[in-house]
């Protein structure tokens, strides 16, 4: 436990100093990855903690992104950060509440597909109607600001994203320690037993779903403001799938797994795409990424975050901390 806290503190510290040691490209890349990490955190709350596999998370992300563009003042004055952020979070959260209240009637794979259905509906509403700018997407010319903070400046944007990620991480880790978080963990391990011991699981799951949607909306807000551009692909199932891959890669059931997974996935993608390393072969970057993912699944059964422990066990021949391994499922 002590090492994990140290690791997280070090990671966030390094991220805080990153813009001073890297160029503008590196800063931009890492701020993008941190947005994905926040997005992955929101899904981790559902998949890793509550055991609800949501395949429509991109809808909430996209709604957060579109809300800041569509709701910003149409003249050239900038919107206020806090108000537009609150709007994005609220809209995504309310949409998640609606979707969740219906989708949670189903279970297992049916739940996965209902969430997909709702997110695809949101996708087609944006994609096929003039209301959302259609396939071309919309540009945002004036970025939100508040006092001295102007999100048009990359450094301010980076700082804002960093604070958002830290806040999201601390919020989730505190939430999971609360009675509410323990109840969610209980639902993941054995829902029947939670019902038998007198919990009404539906409100808990609905609350988790809405919270997760709101967090995803927050990430979407950051994405839209950083790039100043939104397009319908932000709501598509490809993005939902990608973020799911990130958290599985990082390790389900650990909050830091979401962040580790997002960084690992995005950096791998960046590595295999770089023409410096692979030359003209870089256009086949899917191959390297796919092979790495296959190797990760084959050799790291519980995701990247458990690699240090796996290594220690191999080294000393003893097994540490059995309790934090994923609790066995029924099937």
């Amino acid at each position, binding site marked *: 436990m002590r090492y994990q806290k140290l690791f997280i503190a070090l990671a966030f510290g390094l991220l805080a100093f990153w813009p001073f040691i890297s160029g503008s490209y590196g800063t931009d890349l890492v701020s993008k990855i941190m947005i994905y990490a926040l997005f992955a955190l929101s899904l981790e709350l559902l998949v890793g903690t509550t055991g609800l596999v949501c395949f429509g998370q991109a809808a909430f992300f996209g709604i957060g992104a579109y809300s800041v563009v569509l709701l910003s003042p149409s003249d050239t004055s900038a919107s206020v950060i806090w108000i537009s952020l609150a709007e994005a979070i609220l809209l995504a959260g309310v949409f998640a509440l609606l979707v969740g209240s219906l989708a949670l009637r189903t279970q297992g794979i049916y739940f996965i597909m209902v969430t997909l259905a709702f997110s695809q509906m949101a996708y087609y509403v944006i994609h096929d109607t003039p209301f959302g700018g259609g396939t071309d997407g919309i540009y945002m010319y004036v970025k939100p600001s508040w006092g001295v903070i102007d999100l048009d400046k990359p450094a301010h944007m980076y700082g804002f994203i960093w604070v958002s990620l830290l806040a999201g991480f601390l919020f989730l880790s505190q939430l999971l320690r609360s009675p509410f978080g323990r109840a969610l963990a209980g639902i993941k391990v054995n829902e029947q037993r939670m019902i038998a011991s007198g919990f009404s699981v539906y409100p808990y799951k609905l609350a988790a779903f809405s919270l997760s949607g709101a967090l995803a909306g927050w990430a979407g807000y950051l994405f839209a403001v950083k790039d100043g551009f939104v397009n319908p692909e932000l709501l598509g199932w490809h993005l939902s799938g990608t973020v799911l891959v990130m958290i599985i890669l990082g390790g389900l059931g650990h909050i830091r797994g979401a962040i580790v997974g997002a960084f690992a996935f995005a950096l791998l993608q960046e590595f295999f795409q770089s023409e410096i390393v692979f030359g003209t072969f870089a256009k086949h970057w*899917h191959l390297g990424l796919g092979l790495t*993912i296959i190797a990760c699944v084959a050799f790291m059964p519980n995701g990247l975050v458990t690699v240090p422990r796996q290594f220690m066990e191999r080294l000393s021949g003893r097994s540490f901390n059995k309790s934090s391994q994923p609790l066995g499922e029924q099937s």
Partner: protein
Amino acid sequence: MAYALAPFVSASFGGEFFSVLVLGLVLSVILGYLLEWLFFSYLYKREHLQQVLMTYGLILVFEELRSLLIGDDVHGVNIPPILDVSIPLNDMMTYPLYRIFISSVCLLLCIGMWFVFTRTRLGMMIRAGSTNREMVQSLGIDITLLYRVVFAAGVALAAFAGMISAPISSVYPGMGDGVLIVCFVIVIIGGVGSIKGAMMAALLIGLVDTFGKLLLPQVAGVLVYVLMALILLWRPRGLFKV
């Protein structure tokens, strides 16, 4: 995944349609068998999501291998000459025989699958294996082999679907992408494990999609998903639950 792969084999070999069909089937059975053995056989004990991640990795690898080995061109596949005729319906309209061939082959396959699943010993073992792996194993059935065979059969069926649809849809990179999600939707609407459900759902989706494009072109894309959401809210376990 295999769906997209197979037509490329047939397109690149050329030759006579039916012999390529058989060759493609044999190859895809071998491929499915090897894939299960190499990549999936040790994942059943883990969480289901690990299989999802593995599949994702394999899709990426296969798409790129295809791009490296065969290239990114669009291929057309000719309808075999025996079936390349049209049946006159009245003075104006005709209906191509090849489409009737596809429909009847698919119907036959469905009936065959239904027969295997519900009326044979093998089908019984497969259904039992999907319910409780350990129990089937302790009854003395080689579940590892069984799963491998089922996996290979699944790959072969997907490849077969790809091959017979190649002449009417042409063959292009990423053609598997479009059907991937629709396949999931169909299986889920019909109810997982029900062949009758899958057939009905496929029919329903096909009709809704086609008539949606005809009558309400603005919202055609979303109709399939609206249908899925409505059906699953009405029947949370699909139309024909097992």
